[in-house]
């Protein structure tokens, strides 16, 4: 058997971390694709999840905290041939990068966004993230939200995302299906991946998610936005996982065929006489 194209390195994650399953699944999904590693760019911000690109044999871009999406979008714009995948956490995506989350949905560049959502800040050791549960005065938890809990899927739908999905690191088959569908989706695709933080989140544990996640069944119509919004608002005793919403919409590149054809933008060349004509138009 040939050595798989995508392999992994040693990681710096805690034993038992949900990121291992995500890394393993992502590597498997990448190996299923026909794309060679040098045509794949894995982008991350800062955080435990954002380290994912350090551990897979592909191009890697480890940017700033919260700023992975604008960089990833621009990488894709510069070279439309690349497959661009962002792996980063809930704090990075929805907290520090909240503004970019909103506007990259609107931008609809063909990139894939895997949010490793453990509802807590792991790397900084246990502060609440935007997706942490609300504080309950009767059951005091270390990391909870005094304010409202951020609902990423609902926000994504409201902002006009064309692929909105949720999965769970404890169900690798489901996760692989979601990842593959998201990468194939033309345009911005969000998969919010529930993942236990074994060191700091003692509430939203593996068992907690395992008991609650429920794959969407055939009755759910992923082209029905109102149905998707209803499913996005379900997060409690049952947590629906699967593709909540998917719609075919022109991507950023589709709207500018003159810039995005068979030659990557970065390789385009404007003839010198065209530049000289432009300059002379100011005579």
């Amino acid at each position, binding site marked *: 058997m040939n050595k798989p194209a995508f392999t992994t390195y040693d990681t710096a994650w805690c034993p038992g971390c949900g990121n291992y399953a995500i890394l393993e699944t992502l590597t498997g999904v990448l190996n299923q694709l026909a794309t060679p590693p040098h045509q794949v760019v894995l982008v991350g911000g800062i955080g435990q999840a954002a380290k994912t*690109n350090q551990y897979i044999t592909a191009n890697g871009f480890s940017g700033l905290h919260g700023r992975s999406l604008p960089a990833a979008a621009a990488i894709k714009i510069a070279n439309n041939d690349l497959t661009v995948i962002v792996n980063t956490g809930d704090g990075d995506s929805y907290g520090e990068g909240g503004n970019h989350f909103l506007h990259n949905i609107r931008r609809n560049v063909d990139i894939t966004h895997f949010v490793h959502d453990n509802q807590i800040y792991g790397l900084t050791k246990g502060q609440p993230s935007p997706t942490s549960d609300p504080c309950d005065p009767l059951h005091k938890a270390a990391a909870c939200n005094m304010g409202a809990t951020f609902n990423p899927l609902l926000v994504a739908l409201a902002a006009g995302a064309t692929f909105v999905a949720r999965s769970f690191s404890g169900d690798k088959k489901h996760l692989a299906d979601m990842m593959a569908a998201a990468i194939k989706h033309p345009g911005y695709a969000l998969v919010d991946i529930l993942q236990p933080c074994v060191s700091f989140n003692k509430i939203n544990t593996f068992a907690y998610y395992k008991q609650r996640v429920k794959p969407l069944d055939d009755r759910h119509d992923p082209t029905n936005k109102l149905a998707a919004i209803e499913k996005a608002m379900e997060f409690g005793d049952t947590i629906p996982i699967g593709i909540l919403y998917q719609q075919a919409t022109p991507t950023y590149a589709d709207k500018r065929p003159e810039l995005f054809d068979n030659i990557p933008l970065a390789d*385009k060349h404007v003839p010198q006489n065209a530049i000289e004509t432009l300059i002379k138009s100011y005579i």
Partner: protein
Amino acid sequence: MYNILLGGAAGDGIETMSAIFEKMLKQSGCHLFTIRDFMSRVRGGHNFTQIRFGNQPFHAHRDTLNGIFAIDETTYLEHQSRLSYDGFILCDESLAIDDFRAIKCPLKKTAANLGNPKVINSVATGALLKLFDMPLDQAADILKASLRDDLVEVNLSAIKMGYDLLNATHHLSPVETSEQLLLSGNTAIGLGAVAAGIRFYSAYPMSPSTSLLDFFNAQSSAMAIAVEQAEDEIAAINMAIGAAYAGATAMTGTSGGGFSLMVEALGFAGIAEIPLVAVDVQRPGPATGFPTRTEQSDLKFVISASQGEFPRMVIALRDHADCFYQTARSLALAKKYQLPVILLSDQYLADSTTTVPLFDVNKIVHFDQPGPMVPATDDLPYQRYALTENGISPLAIPGKSPALVRVDSDEHDPWGQITESATIRNQMVNKRQNKLNALKEELIEPEFWGSHQCQSLLVGFGSTSGAIKEAIDILNQNENNYGALIFGDIYPLPTERLRHFAAQVVDIINVEQNATGQLASLIREEALINCDHSILKYDGRQLSVDDILNGIKNLKGGF
């Protein structure tokens, strides 16, 4: 040579009138230099443009006016003290201006007779052209290029009727201007970037940098430039970094406030060794400051912006030719040394328009990365941050070869893997700083202007260049005793010429558009040379030739 001012409220159409009048002046064989002074509002207030024109090139504005076109009394009241004794005030007959210099005309009535009161500015344009004895033959073409189709005819009629209102009183012998461009500083930056092969520009609108974003948007399809109006300046610079990583020649632009938001990512470009050009079109700060006015107060900020230490280059743009050639050079240097280059411009340069010799695309130096020298294999993966003698690692672009290109905002090893090794940390810091040694070899020394036997040396940087040079010329008419060094490349600071003249002169005077003398401070820090006197201005209005002459007079007594 004449100096005239067109003034009115925001929304009165002064800007459009000025642009058309400037084109007519140029086509009639004039050189010109126009400054724009406007308030941060869309309607009302007081705005003006000031056009200096004649049969020689100009690089700065002067204070004394030969004529004023006043749409309202405010324009007269604001500027009449600068009008020469033999100057004129062109205005409508209805204005309450009691001045022997006033030329009151039926501008409103003429416009009303044409059925469109808004063409009053074209009536005035015609009257001004006649006053200066300019021909009308280019008017139709210029209006066609400048206005909506349905407005051309009525404005042409208005210009002709205005032309017939007055007699010619001023005369200029025309010169050849067919090889001259007429453009603003920001347009020249845009053209320089296009000539250097820019493929990606991202920005958030912010005065006075916004016209750059508008320029690139207008040229996006024709010049193959992806232009992103980002959600904020943080996104703008991170997008430019992403695009540059993927091989696109990339630039971002903003003013000081936006640059403040870009600071963390500037350091990212530094440690990740991303070729990036960021333009800071300065305005008076701090915070919101004076949104539409000018200052040179970001120098020490951009030199030290971002936490940590990393190599960077800062180039101050001195004039419109610099805007073109130095922008192109900055993009090449960013690629060659794989570092961020910051271009410092300001509102004065950004918004002023002037005639400038046709830019020569062949004079632009391109830098094409040779790519990874060692083919990457499983056993020998590509080292994005290979340790080399001059600190410059062969740069591979993702997707262009089997090499996997890994970049990090964290400290990293030669392969781009995150590390916490003390040894590698030292190697990487040294490698990055090392790039400056090579860069220093190709710095451009400041331009010297004046008498080589000078006893007084003026030092300045950026857009005050034109005013400093003209002031030197005037000072040297009396005593051939003055020289000036005007910095373009400013960080790292080239010091050779500075040391040479500092050893010769009696005193050094720093001339700066800021309150604290930031250039003098940098010179002290980098060259251990003290400036003896300062001429500083920080009221948001650019230092004029006259301000510099007055400053020298105050320092040295009458002459």
